[in-house]
């Protein structure tokens, strides 16, 4: 069977062959422990890890000494949020985050809530962005951290990072951003944006799975309490032997992203616009979820009114996409991100997330648009809601029995 066209770049990205090439020697010949100080094996591995650290730092305009390697963005987010909360808990106990954050941020906050911390979950506007006035109003004397994601994983919207950073710096509050979906896609600058902590995931930017990084500002210094105890590696913030091949992979992925970002951004925007135009021309009643302008070019989240998302995915099985309809999950609840935007449940059930990336071609985009249009039309002919819509019946006027 031919493999489906991959349009799920927010879930993960393929490891770039150049990244893999850079990694390979560190699995075999260069196998040293980067923390071994007494021989050349260790020194060479350490050199490779430090060179990788420089590359990661350079992509976000950071001091390499302020970067620590982790297993991925989930760990980085846990470490940043719980680490800051626990270190400063004697003085401050309030954290501000937002309703559309990734589950690892929300669940870290839930955990802290159980420990007695106070958490504010900011709402988002219908375009998916937070209101800076809400942020300002939520800040108290007890606020230690603001954690707002850079780019949302479902709807691709970019939060106003520089503005948030400015507010936090003025009020003496640490600013953490989960930048898993942003790094390598849009310019990120911890200095210009006043970011104090920043989470990175390698596999979202064509690196290997199982590695990430956390930026922890040194000037002015941010202190965090480690989640685990060990031999003091990564300045005690993340002990454990580093994996040189994975660190090298992340470094190489960052170097490639750094070199290719402007051209790749432009290329993806052309593809994205081409796809969106084809869909909007071919179908009525398609709605974009999330802001169109404040958005990475590699994401579209669309609701195809009156066609259920999982049913649609089954019809476009030669496209690998994901849906905001959580019909596959046990909860049967549609996406909490779309709900936070105020998207009605029935519309949330009709959404598809389409992710474009480095290996997406124009041919694939055209084929995908064509297949989606064909299948949406087929399913609408089968949809009682579409029939009502065509007859001018408002589905909200019907008394539905919840089940």
């Amino acid at each position: 069977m031919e493999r489906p066209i991959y349009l799920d770049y927010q879930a993960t990205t393929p490891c770039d062959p150049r990244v893999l090439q850079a990694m390979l020697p560190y699995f075999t010949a260069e196998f040293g422990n980067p923390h071994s100080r007494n021989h050349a094996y260790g020194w060479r591995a350490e050199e490779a890890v430090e060179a990788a650290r420089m590359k990661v730092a350079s992509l976000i305009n950071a001091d390499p000494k302020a970067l620590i390697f982790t297993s991925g963005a989930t760990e980085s987010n846990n470490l940043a949020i719980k680490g800051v909360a626990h270190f400063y808990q004697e003085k401050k106990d309030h954290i501000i985050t937002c309703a559309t954050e990734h589950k690892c941020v929300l669940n870290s906050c839930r955990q802290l809530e159980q420990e007695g911390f106070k958490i504010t979950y900011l709402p988002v506007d219908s375009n998916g962005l937070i209101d800076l006035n809400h942020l300002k109003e939520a800040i108290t004397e007890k606020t230690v951290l603001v954690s707002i994601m850079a780019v949302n994983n479902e709807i691709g919207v970019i939060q106003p990072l520089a503005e948030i950073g400015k507010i936090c710096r003025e009020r003496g509050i640490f600013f953490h951003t989960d930048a898993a979906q942003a790094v390598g896609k849009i310019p990120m600058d911890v200095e210009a944006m006043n970011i104090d902590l920043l989470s990175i995931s390698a596999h979202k930017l064509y690196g290997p799975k199982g590695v990430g990084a956390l930026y922890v500002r040194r000037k002015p210094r941010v202190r965090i309490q480690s989640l685990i105890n060990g031999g003091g590696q990564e300045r005690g913030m993340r002990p454990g032997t580093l994996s040189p091949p994975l660190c090298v992979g992340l470094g190489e992925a960052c170097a490639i992203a750094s070199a290719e970002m402007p051209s790749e951004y432009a290329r993806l925007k052309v593809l994205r616009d081409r796809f969106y135009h084809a869909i909007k021309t071919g179908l009525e009643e398609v709605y974009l979820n999330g802001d169109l302008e404040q958005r990475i070019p590699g994401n579209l989240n669309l609701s195809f009114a009156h066609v259920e998302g999982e049913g649609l995915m089954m019809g476009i099985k030669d496209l690998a996409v994901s849906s905001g309809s959580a019909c596959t999950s046990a909860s049967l609840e549609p996406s909490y991100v779309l709900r936070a935007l105020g998207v009605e449940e029935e519309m949330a059930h009709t959404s598809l997330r389409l992710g474009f990336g480095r290996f997406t071609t124009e041919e694939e985009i055209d084929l995908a648009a064509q297949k989606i249009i064909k299948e949406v039309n087929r399913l609408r002919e089968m949809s009682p809601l579409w029939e009502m819509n065509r007859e001018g019946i408002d589905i909200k006027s019907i008394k539905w029995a919840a089940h």
Partner: protein
Amino acid sequence: MAYSTEVIDHYENPRNVGTLDSKDDFVGTGLVGAPACGDVMKLQIKVNAQGVIEDAKFKTFGCGSAIASSSLVTEWIKGKTVEEASTIKNTTIAHHLALPPVKIHCSMLAEDAIRAAIQDFKGKQKAA
């Protein structure tokens, strides 16, 4: 999640998609589910003077299993009397389509749709 071949067959080649005249006294219409839950089924039956379902049509908003469940029951109820049709159980539908536990509600909805259509038909007959 992998779908059974039966589900795929009904999803790709749904039987009896369409609409009957809901104003006809011999047509019963059942509309069950809710858009907010991600499933809506409309099932219609046309009953002849002998009480036999001579035609059945459906339209469904939902996942592949919901579409397959409704398509399957339209096949099953055609040619049956109203009484026979009302004995179809969701477990039989779920078993035939090899639905996983998380999709059992699709078969329950299809059973509800048959009952609702029959009830609508009987209501019309009483009124007539």
